[in-house]
């Protein structure tokens, strides 16, 4: 499965590939990775800044693609989905 910059998309369909999802990448490059105190970017390791970034990201994505997944509405019959 050594496909450059691609990843298997699903255990159901291991032969299907797609580009690395940005959200998966950000989990890793922002949320983890070794924290080395750069001279300039000490604050970048600061959790508040990372949180702000992710909030902006949510807002940006939300603006691009408003959620079309209706939550449970009164009278609807399916209620399992959170």
């Amino acid at each position: 499965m050594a496909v450059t910059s691609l990843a298997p998309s699903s255990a159901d369909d291991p032969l299907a590939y797609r580009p690395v999802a940005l959200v998966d990448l950000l989990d890793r490059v922002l949320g983890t990775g070794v924290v080395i105190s750069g001279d300039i970017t000490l604050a970048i390791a600061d959790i508040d800044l990372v949180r702000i970034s992710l909030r902006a990201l949510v807002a940006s994505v939300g603006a691009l693609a408003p959620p079309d997944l209706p939550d449970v509405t009164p009278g609807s019959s399916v209620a399992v989905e959170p």
Partner: protein
Amino acid sequence: MRTTAETTPTADAPETGTGVWLHGVTADVDPATLSGITGMDAAPVRPVRAAGLTAVVSAAPLAEYGEAALRRNLEDLAWLERAARTHHTVVDALSRAGAVVPARLATVHRDDDRVARVLTERRDEFSATLARLTGREEWGVKGYVVPGAPPRTAEAAGAGGGAGAAYLRRRRAQLTAREEGQRIAADAAVAVHTALAGYAVAARRHAPQDRRLSGAATAMVLNGAYLIDRNGLAGFSALVGALADRHPELRLELTGPWPPYSFVAEPSAEPAHPVREPA
């Protein structure tokens, strides 16, 4: 790259000059690996060697990558994506060539000397981490709730009380089913993670992704990362398949191979939930 005296910032001076973006730390790197990739803003990537280690870096103009600029730019989705993908491309190339300790996004140093000093000061830690990561790679397994999997809570229909009461009963049943579904999915996530962690060299759980980011149809209950021996990949993949069969209440998704981003956190950082100490 070294900043000159005139570009050394004072307290509130605007940031000028060029810093050094750290991509990752390796034992050594083949020049051919570096010549095939580019760093931030298409700058060449180059090695900084010290203490028997090699940091792979690229130039980072402080007007864009200085502290103030980064605070602004990290809020910009397009900028963040470009930076993350560029950084990842370098780290991924290094990872395919040998063990690498990936740097967190936006680790910028003033100059090469500072980078070299970090290598020297943290040599033992880097060397131990590189030894632990050699021959291994990270795989991700995400688990999503499958709607409708748990049984509905039975409740007598039309038990009287009029439309309002019927609505409230229905709503209560919905909420109960929803909580039950979440509990079942959460339990399954623990079971899947425990099984995968038992196979992996090390494992940790990231926070579940927001659906607005992931675009997933249902909630994520597992966002796991697993450090796997390269020769154990087939077994890991088979285990994921078996767990998917065993837990129809979850939809599992396998991603990778990743550079070992999730397994290099420094000891003082948030616990990485190691399940088994690396050999």
